[in-house]
């Protein structure tokens, strides 16, 4: 089944063509660099920008897949969560194309896209997902740990109560005077630093039973530390970046680990998606966690599948299509505060 997918949930204008879980094309029009994915730059007049780009992006996605729109089986689109006016552009375009070409329409939750993104281009997706499994979304807008009862049925186990992980990293970089978003550059510097140079508080350490992520306290502590350490040199920046990223990840791993050990279920795999899942240090720590808890940890096959993209929407749409979950063009609508449990 060949599906054209569209995602305009926030900053990026994205379209992709997938066949089953195979990615045939994945086009992302980003104002920011393709490598600063989990922050993104807010285009002025978001709606107009999406409107201007969407036609080109869709055309390119179909062309890169070597297909014609007539030969596609369905059109999928992100309905939420995201920025309302931005979502509207994608939804309207999908609706228009579905009517014009007589295609079936599939409404997809952006977070489900991130969770299922490791299945893209996977050789045996059916066996990759023995349920219950865990899903972890780490991005600029979300930090969410969920239980996958089966594909299409999810429960929230832990989520952020203030800042998302990607947002915290971006803000940490900003505190260091590295601009915004700076999560990607923070990662670069954090490779060479001394983790013992500074001591920062691990959020809710010892209270992991609260099963939540929180980064606002760490952010404020970091702000004070950096003020104290000014003027900053390159060496200080590198050590500070390393320590900040280290503590931010330690918190994520501690909570995830607690949830795993506390659960009465044995989870077979952990699906990780979202912009921050491109961070190699985070991948290393999650793999180690997986080894210790006998959980297979899966990531998207390419960096282009970690940030906001439409190929992951195509993967999620494929499973919805298998379940016959299509929607009439007259009934589809954006849902800015959509939940993964909807």
């Amino acid at each position, binding site marked *: 089944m060949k599906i054209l997918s569209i995602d305009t949930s926030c900053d990026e204008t994205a379209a992709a063509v997938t066949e089953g879980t195979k990615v045939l094309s994945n086009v992302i029009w980003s104002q920011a660099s393709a*490598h600063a994915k989990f922050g993104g*730059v*807010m285009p*002025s007049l978001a709606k107009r920008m999406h409107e201007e780009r969407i036609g080109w992006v869709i055309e*390119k996605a179909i062309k890169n897949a070597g297909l014609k729109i007539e030969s596609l089986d369905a059109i999928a689109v992100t309905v939420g969560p995201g920025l*309302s006016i931005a979502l509207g552009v994608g939804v309207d375009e999908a609706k228009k194309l579905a009517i014009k070409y007589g295609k079936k329409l599939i409404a997809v939750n952006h977070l489900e896209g991130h969770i299922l993104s490791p299945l893209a281009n996977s050789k045996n997706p059916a066996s990759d997902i023995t349920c219950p499994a865990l899903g972890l979304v780490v991005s600029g807008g979300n930090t969410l740990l969920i239980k996958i009862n089966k594909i299409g049925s999810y429960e929230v186990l832990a989520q*952020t109560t203030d800042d998302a992980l990607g947002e915290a990293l971006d803000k940490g970089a900003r505190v260091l005077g590295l*601009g915004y978003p700076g999560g990607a550059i923070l990662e670069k510097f954090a490779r060479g630093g001394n983790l013992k140079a500074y001591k920062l508080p691990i959020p809710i350490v010892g209270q992991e039973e609260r099963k939540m992520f929180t980064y606002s306290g760490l952010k404020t502590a970091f702000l004070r530390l950096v003020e104290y350490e000014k003027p900053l040199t*390159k060496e200080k920046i590198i050590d500070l970046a390393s320590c900040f990223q280290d503590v931010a990840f330690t918190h994520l791993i501690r909570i995830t680990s607690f949830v795993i050990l506390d659960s009465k279920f044995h989870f077979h795999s952990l699906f990780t998606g979202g912009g921050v899942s491109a961070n190699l240090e985070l991948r290393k720590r999650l793999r180690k966690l997986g080894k210790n808890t006998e959980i297979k940890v899966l990531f998207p096959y390419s960096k282009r599948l970690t940030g906001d993209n439409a190929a992951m929407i195509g993967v999620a749409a494929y499973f919805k299509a298998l379940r016959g979950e299509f929607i009439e063009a007259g009934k589809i609508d954006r849902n800015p*505060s959509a939940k993964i449990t909807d």
Partner: protein
Amino acid sequence: MRIIKDGKMAVGSAVRVLKSGGLVIYPTETLYGIGVDATNPKAIKKLTEYKDRPLGKPYSVAVADQKMAEEYVELNSVAKNLYREFLPGPLTVISKGKHKLAKGVESEDGTLGIRIPDYVLTIEIIKKLGKPITATSANASYKKRPYTVTDILNNISGKQRKLIDLIIDAGDLPHNEPSTVIDTTLDDPVTLRQGEIKLANKNELLSRSEENTQNSAKEIWQKYEQHSGKRAIIFALQGEMGTGKTIFTKGLARAMGITELVTSPTFTLENEYITGKEKLFHFDAWRLEKSEELRNLGFKNLIKDKSVVSVEWAEKVSDTIHEFDDEAIIIWVKIEFGKRQNERRIAWGVTQ
């Protein structure tokens, strides 16, 4: 198309081609880049044709040094710090442009990304040309990252090949990641309009904890709750990062009887929380570049619908908020760090 080896001889040839509006593929410490004279509109048009990408997508440029950069952009303190510590190197710094380059190089907002490649030959070329050259990667959009000349030639069409005038071949480049892009324009000083905000009353509280901050929000809400549903109520929150603007909004939501989880809207720009009949709209203006952008987010309709709205970084959009002085009750809340670690000074008042 001519291919020459990396070396002293290449500088003169490259400069000649660039001067006549031609396309040069050159090595950097990251990838092969494709350069044209960034001040020449015809050359930029040719480059856009080569890259096969939509109009309106900006190009970053490479300069020889900070001095050259300052001819084309305004460097704020964040940018200056980055130039001092990290350039030349794999970093592209976005600043406010001075609109001196060909159309289509700067972004629609007039910002420009600049890098200084850590590659002697390329710097020599730019120095001799005396102008910035484009610093986009030499692949056509959405194709393989070019670390060798073969990577480029194997992935382009015959038509694209014809557009290239000169290739400087430096062999297989070390497989470094492409340069990281940092936007410094969001750190430009916010035009504070505090002086213009005439408050009918001014109140001050001292918060000693997050719980305290949440309770302050509740106290303030209870004073204005009676207007809920009759007029829009805007909480315009000001305060540096980490002062607790999201915490304040959590307290507001709780006081309103909203049980949904309140989180930072920095990334999504807007969150909506609904519990039963109660609705709260939560904005974050930090990433907005212009005050009018708040209007594009549907702000006007929310005021018309007599909604309750909380806006973080309200100082960035104070102009737009002020437009609703008559229609809405606007409560300006300023949160500042106190003397002790968990202390915050909260000052608030309504527009006259």
